[in-house]
């Protein structure tokens, strides 16, 4: 009897191994004990900083879809417009509040990527990983630039945001509500990041296609300084880029959006490479083309506005891919007179090559984010503002862009006042950069013209000046425990 019990107990111990640590294996995860150790690991961390700013429907902020910056911003400029109701229509008419997820999600979804970059920058700065100073400096410059880019994008939509210091990130389980940055602190923070990029990144000639260069960091600085109306700084950065003597205006405007063309265009400052394999995606053809489009049907999600189309001069090549008429796969001719529900708000804003041979919903037309034309138009704007009125130099810069679009020079005399010049310049920006990065919205805001535009396109039912800044979703307010203050008007 005793023996039996004793042997059972022994057997039990044999089975359970008693105090042994139980083993868990998950081969798909990387254990922090082995990462990062090598220069290759650091490169993987740098690559991860491109991840949130690439184009991907779910988690790449520059996706050419309803979840991307471009479409969201253009929905308020008149370049694109949504119909009645739905996320697109509500955005177009400024019908949103803190519970409108399509508007609040950019912050909710992407702002912690800034923290990832902060913590990666901290890791690299303090690391003893065997790598050259040059490698380390380049890695840090790319990370700073990515962080500056993401901060700028969110700052542009929401105003100052929460940027967590490294100390808060080192103890994630501790609940530390943070306030949004002070406005100037935010601007300085972005500026410092982009300056780090401008100093530390390779020149455009030496950088791999798709990667950040010093030219790109300076282009972003231009955008930041425009936003802040720091015209001297805009001018200085424009001149620095111009003096690189690297970028040129591409004579073929339309051709820049041919399949894989951006790679070879001298004008492109930064484009996001895309492939059919969905590593980084361009799905704009599906968004912009109607379901009965004959060559390849799209999802028919979005239209431009007839107002926008009518604002182009007749010979402007830049409206080439605003599709105003087509014979549908149902044999019906759709046009402005017979728009049905396909062209009723405006033309189809294809912008780019249809990539008609693709056997995928995705395209290999790369997503062009910034071009040299922006440098020239920004310089024109800076000169005019510094002088209090446009100069011939400023007008020449505008005309250089107009000429490439196959339209005539404008005489300075007709645009001699700053207001007239700026009105013309804004329209030119709209025509030049439509459906690229959506910065036209910031351009309009800079001159207090966004609400006016929304009223023009979608009526004045919901348009209010405070809605220029998007609201933050409620969880941010709640977790902030009083420290996080909502944008005015949304309380």
């Amino acid at each position, binding site marked *: 009897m005793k023996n039996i019990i004793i042997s059972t107990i022994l057997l039990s111990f044999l089975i359970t191994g008693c105090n042994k640590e139980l083993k868990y294996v998950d081969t798909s995860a990387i254990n922090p004990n082995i*990462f990062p150790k090598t220069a290759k690991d650091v490169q993987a961390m740098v690559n991860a900083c491109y991840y949130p700013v690439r184009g991907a429907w779910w988690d790449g902020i520059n996706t050419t879809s309803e979840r991307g910056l471009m479409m969201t911003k253009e929905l308020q400029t008149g370049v694109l417009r949504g119909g009645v109701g739905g996320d697109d229509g509500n955005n177009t008419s400024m019908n949103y509040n803190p519970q409108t997820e399509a508007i609040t999600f950019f912050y909710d979804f992407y702002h912690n990527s800034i923290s990832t970059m902060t913590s990666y920058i901290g890791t690299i700065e303090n690391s003893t990983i065997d790598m050259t100073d040059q490698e380390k400096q380049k890695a840090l410059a790319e990370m700073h630039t990515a962080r500056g880019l993401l901060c700028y994008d969110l700052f542009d939509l929401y105003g100052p945001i929460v940027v967590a210091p490294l100390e808060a990130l080192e103890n994630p389980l501790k609940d530390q509500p943070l306030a949004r940055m002070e406005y100037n602190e935010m601007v300085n923070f972005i500026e410092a990041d982009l300056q780090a990029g401008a100093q530390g990144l390779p020149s455009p000639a030496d950088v791999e296609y798709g990667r950040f260069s010093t030219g790109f960091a300076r282009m972003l600085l231009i955008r930041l300084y425009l936003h802040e109306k720091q015209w001297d700084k805009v001018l200085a950065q424009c001149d620095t880029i111009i003096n690189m003597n690297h970028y040129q205006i591409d004579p073929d405007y339309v051709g820049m959006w041919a399949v894989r063309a951006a790679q070879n265009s001298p004008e492109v400052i930064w484009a996001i490479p895309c492939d059919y394999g969905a590593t980084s995606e361009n799905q704009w053809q599906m968004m912009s083309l109607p379901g009965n489009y004959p060559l390849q049907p799209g999802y028919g999600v979005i239209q431009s506005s007839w107002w926008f189309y009518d604002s182009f001069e007749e010979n402007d090549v830049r409206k080439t891919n605003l599709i105003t008429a087509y014979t549908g796969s149902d044999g019906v001719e759709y046009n402005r007179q017979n728009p049905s529900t396909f062209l009723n708000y405006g033309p189809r804003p294809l912008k780019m090559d249809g990539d008609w041979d693709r056997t995928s919903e995705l395209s290999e037309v790369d997503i062009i984010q910034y071009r040299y034309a922006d440098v020239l138009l920004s310089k024109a704007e800076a000169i005019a503002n510094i002088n209090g009125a446009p100069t011939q130099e400023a007008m020449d810069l505008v005309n250089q862009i107009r000429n490439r679009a196959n339209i005539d020079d404008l005489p300075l005399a007709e645009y001699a006042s700053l207001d007239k010049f700026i009105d013309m310049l804004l329209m030119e920006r709209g025509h030049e950069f439509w459906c690229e990065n959506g910065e036209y919205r910031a351009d309009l805001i800079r001159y207090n013209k966004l609400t006016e535009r929304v009223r023009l396109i979608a009526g004045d039912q919901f348009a209010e000046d405070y809605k220029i800044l998007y609201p933050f979703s409620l969880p941010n307010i709640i977790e902030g425990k009083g420290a996080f203050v909502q944008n005015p008007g949304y309380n």
Partner: protein
Amino acid sequence: MLLVISAIAGIDNFERRKVPAGIPVRTIQGTVNDANTSLPIEGVTITVKGTTIATKTNSRGEFTLTAPDNSQSLVISSIGYILTEIPISSGSISVKLTPSATDLSEVVVVGYETMKKSDLTGAITTINADKLDKATAPDVSRMLQGKVAGLQILQNSAQPGGGLDILIRGGGSINASNRPLFVVDGFPIYEVGQPEGTDPLRYYTEGSLGTLNSLNPNDIQTVTVLKDASATAIYGSRAANGVVLITTKRGATGEAKISYSGNYSVQPYDNRWKLLPFKTWLQTHNDAGWENFLYQNQVAPWGSRTLEEAEANPVAGLYTPRFSQAFIDNAEQGTDWLGLITRTGSTMQHNVSISGGSEGVKYLLSGNYFKQDGVVRNSGIERGSFRANVDIKLNRIMKLVTSLNYNRVTNNNSQLGNDQYEKSGIITAALQQGPHIRARDETGGYPINPDAAIQPNPASLLTMTDKGRQEKLLGDVALDINPVNHVNINVKWGIDKSTFKRWMYTPTTIVRGRSEQGVADVINSDNNHYLLQATASYNNTFASKHKVDILVGASRERFIDDMDAQNATSFITDAFLMYNTGAATGKRTLSSSHVESEIASLFGRLNYNYESKYYFTFSLRNDGTSLFVQGHQWGLFPSAALAWDITRESFFKFSPEKISQLKLRLSYGEVGNSSIGTNAFAAYAAVPAYLSGTRQRVIGVRPDRLENPDLKWETTKEFNVGLDFGLLNSKVSGSFEYFNKQVSDLLDTKLLQSYQPINSVIANIGATRVKGLEFTISTLNLSRKDFSWRSTLNISRYKTTWDNRAPDWKPSIFEKDNDPVKAMFYRHAEGILQVGQKVPDAQPDLLPGQIIISDVDGFVRDDNGDPIVDEKGRFVLSGSSDGLIDDADYTLIGDESPSFSGGLTNSIEYKRFSLNFSFNGVFGRIMEDPNFMRYGLDASGIFSGGQNRFVNVLDRWTPTNPSTTQPSSYQGSSIYGNGDFFLQKAWFIRLQNVSLEYRLPDYLLKGIFSRIGVQVGANNLFLITPYKGMDPETDVYAAAYPNMRMFTFGLNFDF
């Protein structure tokens, strides 16, 4: 398994109980029959009163017994019958047994062991599988619906083999699984679901499937539900949500018994979705287009413009109706999309079993084939299963007990889910595709709706291939040793191996397949679960008064899961399906994973009773899991219970004719939960992050999971009081339970500050409390010659609320510390804003035809108008309306969990007929009708998306139809929301099943068959509910699988 071992041991003991030599004996012969049905009863125990001499009846109800000459009477007992005593007379004795409502001598599995029902101290319910309707569904859990107090089963999908939400005593856990542990023959079952497709732009979900589809219900002998913590604590770490013990049938000594049962069911599709008829649709298209014009151009009452102003400067051109009046007048028939995708469903089942055995070897072999084709085309399930249970007596003290079960379940998935646009499943697409689109065009293609170009043609979805196949091998072998009297040792080894394959192909006939030139998806998952377990038990009775039963044991389980998947696009032909991914010319995506984890346990239990009057149980289990970091891996789970059989007290004066049983039970126990679907360790993940300048994928490493070094077991502490009673000689019996359990250290994903790179972590986040009552009563309502009627009613009620929250919990202003776990927070809707009515101050943007929301409360704000917080960092309600509709206007209006649920089963026997029917019901429930919300409310989609809608849209508010019950098509544009406007009562009582069986008279059996039965039945015959949608149980989302009636014909015979 142990039940069976003990049962076998019990039979052997009977055979040893012979009359001592030298005493004069007589032989007694007789037969035992059912008093109602007159059928012979097998396995009845015949005991000579005052002795231990006993025997059992054979399959013909016959017994032979050698008894001392001076014996006076026999005691006849059998599970399910009232105990009967008869005097011994000369000649053959004929006994008629009356079925009882319950039986206390019944043997019940209690985890690693069995006990007599009368000895139980915990809250346990046993269901005999004979009583279950096995014809219409593959998953045994379906059959338990409404049968057990405290076991709430809601069907969340009506598709063949559809999924079930199973809760024992409410869901106290928040994130950690609330599913009970299923133990089949002592083996904890490890159920895996069908793997999802890996296509990154994957279109459809397959709906949920029941997890026990792989178990053949016909193999089941009993199902035992362990409810309170004293009963479940022996299963420790995984018992937090209760335990369901399933025992399968095993062979018995005797000639081979061959049984067959088969049935065939039909399930007609009865369309209850009232879509607009074609003509009405055309007219409504024009009407909605005009409404859209007026609304969009802000023509009064939707704005301040006049019609003339709008037409002079329209937003998007002038409106011309799409369909001319002549076209509408001459329109004949639109496409009946629902008709195209539905059919009469059918179910077919064959079941054969052979059992028998000798002294040395007992066996049961069974095979089952089950096939169901659902009412939605392409949906179906097919199962083939084989079981071999073999018990071998090796020698005087050792027995080998083996079970081998193989089965194969093939699912045919139709594309379900409530996603829209490109992800529209077949029902969604059929409901919303405009009737003006044709199913096929002249070239045989599938036209799409150009207004909803992204949405697949519903008929095209029938060309999708989507199959899942699970193969499961469940095998175990146990060595049972009886070295000396009173001692039993059992060592068991087992494997539960599941492989699941999923094959999907989206052909070029479907929108997505066309743009990708075909998408193939192949997924393999391989899940292995190994068990090694040893138990030793000792039971004895001392001084005829002290009965002791001790069990100790240990087990170790390992889990090894592998998965690999491939996705490929662009094929020259659809004919390859997904079987030739090598021929893909488009993108290819590969993935694989491997996870191992383990659980180790030590456990013990002591049962003691004194004169079957006072009972005491104590158990302890120590469990370790590899999911937590070292130091938190092990958890200790104790329990104790007391029971007092009052009828055995000398002061108890009632006769059994009045009160036959009165037993009070008290228990307390602790159990654990660690099923979090992840682990507590930090990790980075490698992902394709970007493309190089030459379009090569470059890998980025991103933070993926935080370590939580403090993560520990979720623990349930449960207190239970129970009372078992029997009245009128057990004609009425039942039990009453009250329980109160606290689930502490709740495992859940805790939100960290959102700025953290990983802004959530698995953590112990607080505690919930579940309080409940359960009541079960079984009655023998009538018992006459050739007629009996028995009923069992069960009712259970529970309430699950938060008990405490994490210190850094971040509530919305309307949330309170002790809210229900499934709280329903809604704003109050007052009605619909009519033309001329003052626009509420708090809703400046509200338009006529939209819902008015009550401004009930507001935030306390500082001078800048920003809300302020209290010392805990939470926002504060001002207590009065503030002219804003915001979070402060939400109030707690209810609980998603029903306030109570119940079931009623009835069994009526008349001569050779038996009629069984059971109801189940769920009460105190409110919900929105998801179908109405999507298809009954808003007519604008008819115009803008060319979609169809329910006839309800004809009642919508328009300037000319100022409805007070249904808002306008533009309610969706109101930023103030719907409030509680659309909530409706959703309690229901369902006649779950009814079946009538007729057993052929003996003279027709010709001695070949021992029994032939013929059945007809119906399932889900009717529903009583105030709910206006399709079905309050399965309307889990819009366009859910329709839950239809089913009619069954069955045949069974035994050789």
